[in-house]
């Protein structure tokens, strides 16, 4: 919500980069320790001695895909309200304690996960009380009625505010249409009807069902040894009941629409936002590496990608044009997008479709493939150069059950991808003639 006056960058950071877990080499991978608590909570730990700080990231299989459709927003509200009360502590007391210790507490949810994180200095006078309070808000939130009502109103206002953004309208329409009949259709920030219908009982029941040991993963990194890490994990998650792991999600393949669909929504924006796509791949997909590397050439490598060259560099149609796979538990979307002034939208759409069709049929050139491999492997050290980034990777490895050797294996697997494999994977998995197209804008005309 805050207006950032500081900078204009030359281009948007790559959307795909944040969403795809990518490369590692054997030489510099951090050593991951992994164990499971008595209640089933899985812990992933990396010792990082260079800064006197500790980062904890706890995620539960409790993302918006777990919302009952008439209660869309339940995952988000449960997650968001954890630090609004526990026992005799209210929201004021919890915030005062965390912030007085200088720690940073945050919560967030996406379609698969709901998570909370804590960042603290390792000074035990700060860390110990922070850990105790963190454990308490995870295990025993009180969901005060006054907080529920207030935060419900704020969330509803947030939905209204977001309607002013064509990008937001397009993304919501895209998921709603692509995953119609599947929980991925539900927005991560809830629906108006769902938020209005939520009760305190819904929140306490959702918390009791999902915030349990067998449904939990802790990613832990910092200036502590293994013994201290074990004690911290026990202290933070040990008191959660074991409960049950969440059941498998419905299969996307059973509900995904086939056939070409175009959805056009008017919006008073000067630009049209275009999104084109279909359901893509899972986190553990057998085609993961060919699809990842192929997309890198197509639209995942910033200004040097084919889409950028054709749409931005040659034709000046858009500031930002991209494509990415968003790998989720079930196949997340494969998505191409751009924004252009309303009068150019038909031209931009035609160019994107042509580039996609051509790439799907023929795959990358040998030069493009070689360049992509050099970028992905040569840039490996940048992907794990901070505690924050390593923590994000630990979370994904833990949550999706990727092998602990995932990081060591990554570079060899990228190197092994051939142009033929990319062509084959794209021909089987990408269907330019059967995609969903969402078009939002045109209001100024």
């Amino acid at each position, binding site marked *: 919500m805050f207006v950032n006056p500081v900078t*204009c960058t030359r281009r948007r950071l790559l959307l795909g980069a944040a969403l795809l877990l990518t490369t590692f080499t054997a030489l510099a991978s951090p050593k991951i320790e992994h164990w499971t608590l008595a209640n089933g909570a899985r812990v992933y730990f990396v010792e990082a001695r260079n800064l006197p700080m500790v980062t904890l990231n706890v995620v539960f299989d409790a993302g918006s895909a777990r919302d009952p459709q008439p209660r869309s927003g339940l995952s988000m509200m449960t997650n968001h309200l954890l630090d609004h009360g526990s026992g005799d502590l209210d929201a004021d007391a919890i915030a005062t304690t965390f912030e007085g210790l200088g720690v940073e507490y945050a919560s967030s949810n996406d379609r698969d996960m709901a998570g909370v994180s804590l960042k603290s200095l390792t000074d035990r006078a700060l860390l110990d009380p922070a850990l105790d309070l963190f454990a308490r808000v995870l295990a025993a939130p009180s969901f005060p009625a006054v907080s529920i009502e207030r935060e419900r109103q704020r969330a509803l206002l947030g939905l209204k505010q977001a309607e002013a953004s064509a990008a937001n309208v397009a993304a919501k329409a895209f998921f709603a249409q692509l995953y119609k009949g599947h929980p991925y259709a539900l927005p991560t920030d809830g629906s108006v009807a769902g938020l209005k219908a939520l009760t305190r009982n819904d929140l306490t029941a959702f918390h009791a069902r999902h915030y349990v040991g067998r449904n939990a993963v802790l990613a832990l990194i910092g200036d502590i040894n293994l013994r201290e890490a074990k004690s911290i994990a026990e202290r933070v998650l040990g008191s959660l009941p074991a409960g049950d792991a969440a059941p498998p999600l419905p299969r996307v393949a059973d509900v995904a629409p086939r056939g070409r669909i175009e959805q056009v929504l008017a919006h008073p924006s000067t*630009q049209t936002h275009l999104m084109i796509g279909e359901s893509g791949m899972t986190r553990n997909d057998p085609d993961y590496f060919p699809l990842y590397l192929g997309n890198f050439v197509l639209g995942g490598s910033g200004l040097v990608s084919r889409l950028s060259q054709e749409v931005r560099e040659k034709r000046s*149609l858009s500031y930002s044009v991209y494509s990415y796979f968003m790998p989720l538990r079930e196949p997340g979307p494969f998505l191409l997008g751009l924004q252009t002034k309303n009068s150019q939208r038909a031209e931009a759409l035609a160019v994107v479709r042509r580039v996609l069709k051509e790439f799907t049929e023929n795959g990358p050139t040998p030069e493009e493939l070689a360049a992509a491999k050099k*970028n992905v492997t040569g840039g*490996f050290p940048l992907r794990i150069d901070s505690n924050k980034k390593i923590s994000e990777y630990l979370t994904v490895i833990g949550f999706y059950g990727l092998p602990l050797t995932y990081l060591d294996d990554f570079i060899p697997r990228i190197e092994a991808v051939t142009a033929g494999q990319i062509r084959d994977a794209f021909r089987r998995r990408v269907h330019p003639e059967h995609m969903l197209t969402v078009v939002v804008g045109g209001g100024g005309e």
Partner: protein
Amino acid sequence: MSLVRFSLALAAMLLAACNGPVQETTLENGLKIVVREDHRAPVVVSQIWYKVGPSDEPDGLTGISHVLEHMMFKGTAVHQNGEFSRVIAENGGRENAFTGIDYTAYFQQLEKSRLAIAFELEADRMRNLVLDEKEFAKELRVVMEERRLRTDDQPEALAYERFMATAFTAHPYKNPIIGWMRDLEKLTVQDLRTWYRRWYAPNNATLVVVGDVDARAVIALARQHFGPIPAHTLEPARAPQEPAQTGTRRSRISAPAQVPSLLMGFHAPALSTRSDDWEPYALMVLNGVLDGGGSARFERELVRKQQIAAGVDIGYSPTARYPVLFFMQATPSHGRTPAELEAAIRAQIRRVQEEPVAPEELARVKAQVAASNVFTRDSAFYQAMQMGMLETVGLDWRLLDRSVERVRAVTAAQVQTVAKKYLTESNLTVTLLDPQPGKAKPRAPAPLGGGHVR
């Protein structure tokens, strides 16, 4: 010049300048170099900061610094259009650029052994840029799309633009970084050539490198690549001074939206190098007291207790060349009006003026600043960015580490003093985003070949 001779010649200078993990030097051509060794990961970030930005732009040429930033990737006499990005990408690097109100900066992040590649390309485009007319015309259209994306279609960004243009009447801070669309439409390649020749020179730049490197070797490498570029006589811009404000200013802007928004700001000082200059630090603490998280006054009083605001944020970025604004951006909660919210914010301001902040509040802000100083070091890029910005606006990178002590020294009385001195009626600007919900409703959609959902 050989490496050995260089090392001997520079050793004394480096020892004198060395203070903790940072080494700095200035080449004979005026290029300032700051290197911080950070050996946590085998990577390096290189940033070059030019002391030119929108605050140097005369009326009519707004946005020219940012357009030039885009054109810096369009080829030189040696490297053709697009080669910069391609070479960095093939080396596993990430690169980009950003324009702030007082600066234009370019960066590369690479595996540590590849720093020379970045230096070679960056030194080349410091002086050899080819500003081709056709490429300029194309890139200008991209920048216009960027403006539509970031500003024209973002009601709150439009409101901020109007707010700055109200609070500043003469000084260039009144203009948006990306420029006014009308000015962009009139910009010529000749304007850019003049701007580039005038500002892009070693004596108008700072090179900041942070990473798993040997600082002396980095300085030697920088000398090899940037050393031969001649210095250039700089003709500084003379930004019009902002006259003292003598009464509350108000503006409003209508935009297709459903939720109103309120901006309230006060002219406030930027950081300076004077060691007795405590006011910006007191304003930072005031910022933290009012808006430093869930336990700060705005969140506690206005959002949770009175439920009059859905959100209130303070903006105060004193790392700047000229005086800035201390401002609030606020959204009224459902059923409450902007006028009610403004009154509630004013009441909070009166309270910090009339009574000293509590010792617990002061302690909390200081604990947060100390912790966040450590957390920040998790990112080499952000460290480089902070040092580069400090140097570029005429300050000193050492403020990065000194700011924690400076904040620690702030007293409750000083917080009260700056609140009384700057948060005054005659120093206030208020801008209202007046939503036009009617326009946001879907209209009959224009056909797109395929038509509606089917």
